[in-house]
């Protein structure tokens, strides 16, 4: 069965100030795929995410989400079109409880009416969903804690739970292992894999920990100096001589 293209980027150019950050980048991501983006620091990975999610203005090129061109859409409009974005500095609200963070995501995903919390039945249903989502990342026991009290790794897990609750068909995750202990990296990998395999999300992920990434993704896009250097299966990328030199010094 032919899979739909969830994200399409065509000939994207992004210039910030006088510097061209992304040059002529094209890529397609198919439904249910996990695609990794790697490249040296400053090669324009996060800028590419910012351009896709509408936080950075693009010069030329075309971005489509689920077949719809979104170039002129604001970030929140793109989110409503099914794009969920995780951030390098964790996009959760630390002054809110874990429960409130997930409730906010559910409210947006399901467009609940403003008075939903005054309906006992609705409240029960939302509570059940919150519990299930937090349990999925092993954070249910912290439900009433402020998110700011969590460790770096737990914050990342909460972000994964939030991205799950938001329900977008396309999920962008930026450096999920930053500040995460090796113990929690396994859990984080499972959470991301579940988003794709169990919940059918399409995922694009930026990551510096190549072992973590290669174990997780179906395909890798390599950026060098703002341009797409190559694209292929993790094995193919690992065997590329120039990349081995850049990343592994061999």
């Amino acid at each position, binding site marked *: 069965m032919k899979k739909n293209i969830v994200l399409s980027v065509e000939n994207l150019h992004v210039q910030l100030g006088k510097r061209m950050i992304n040059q002529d980048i094209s890529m397609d991501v198919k439904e249910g795929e996990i695609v990794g983006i790697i490249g040296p620091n400053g090669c324009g990975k996060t800028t590419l995410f910012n351009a896709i999610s509408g936080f950075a203005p693009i010069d030329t090129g075309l971005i489509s989400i689920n077949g719809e061109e979104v170039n002129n859409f604001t970030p*929140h409009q793109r989110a409503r079109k099914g794009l969920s974005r995780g951030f390098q500095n964790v996009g*959760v*609200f630390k002054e809110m409880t874990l429960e409130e963070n997930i409730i*906010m995501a559910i409210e947006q995903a399901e467009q609940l009416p403003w008075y939903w919390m005054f309906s006992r039945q609705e409240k029960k249903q939302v509570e059940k969903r919150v519990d299930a989502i937090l349990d999925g990342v092993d954070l249910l026991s912290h439900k009433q804690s402020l998110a700011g009290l969590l460790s770096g790794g737990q914050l990342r897990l909460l972000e994964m739970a939030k991205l799950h609750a938001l329900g977008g068909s396309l999920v962008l995750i930026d450096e999920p292992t930053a500040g995460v202990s090796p113990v929690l990296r396994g859990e984080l990998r499972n959470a991301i894999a579940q988003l794709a395999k169990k919940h059918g999300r399409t995922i694009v992920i930026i990551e510096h920990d190549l072992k973590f990434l290669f174990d997780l993704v179906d395909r890798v896009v390599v950026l060098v100096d703002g341009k797409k250097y190559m694209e292929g299966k993790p094995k193919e990328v690992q065997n590329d001589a120039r990349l081995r030199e850049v990343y592994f010094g061999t």
Partner: protein
Amino acid sequence: MGYFYTIFARFLASLGQGVGGQVSFSMAGIFLLSLPVCFSFSAYTMAILHKKFAVVLWVSIIIALFLTMMLGALFSYTYTKVSKDSFTVLCLGSILAFDAFVRSFDSFTGGVLGISGILRPESIRTLPALVQFSFFVLIVILVAQYLVLKSPMGRKIRAFKEHPVALQAFGVSQKSVISFVIIGGSLLSGISGLLEVFRIQFLDPSFGGIPNLIVLVSISILALKPKVKAVVLASMLVVFLPELISFLDFPSALLGHLRVLLYSVLLIVLIHTISGKSQFQKREI
């Protein structure tokens, strides 16, 4: 009893404005220093329409509140177009600009002499009736605030203060949150201005202004927690505390100045002790 009613009416007017301050300053992190302008603007608009253009009092009130909301919409639009720092300076400037406007256009505003003999509506002509009416209005405002705090909008406002970029990634329009906070805050300030002018039945350029701003900021800093009781207690403290001075043996001419001095000292103490938690002027990430 008259003293009690006067103080209670002042408390209610301050509380109304305090709710607007709490939502904008403490919850949304928007340093909306233009609230005193809205406080004065609604009172002057109502008084001018009623006294100079003979518009029916209740109609003047409704028009005044509508125009105050429009003024809020203008501030809201400005907030989306300039930096946070510029917006703060612009709001402060608007207080001075409004003061200059009131003093200059004396054919409408009465200039430095002001507008005297402002009548209350028939149904709230006496002070006790005004206090009862104000109390009813404030109950409605506090119930509305409670509902907002519990609702998705309450969470969006708090999220906007902490991480506006992540909020957009949730699919929430920043503009909708900004408009809600600034227009809502301006309306509440306008309502408070009307309650206050009906209490004192007189308007001059000192109505609202910097002393009012100091009271408002003090209440907002004290009411850091997004709870209704926080703003009620903060308003109580800020309004009733300076009343202790009136029981001391000071010349009556000095009392007003001493009250402002006390508010200023209170504000400095608050800024030193708890305002750090409010993260005013936090930049977007």
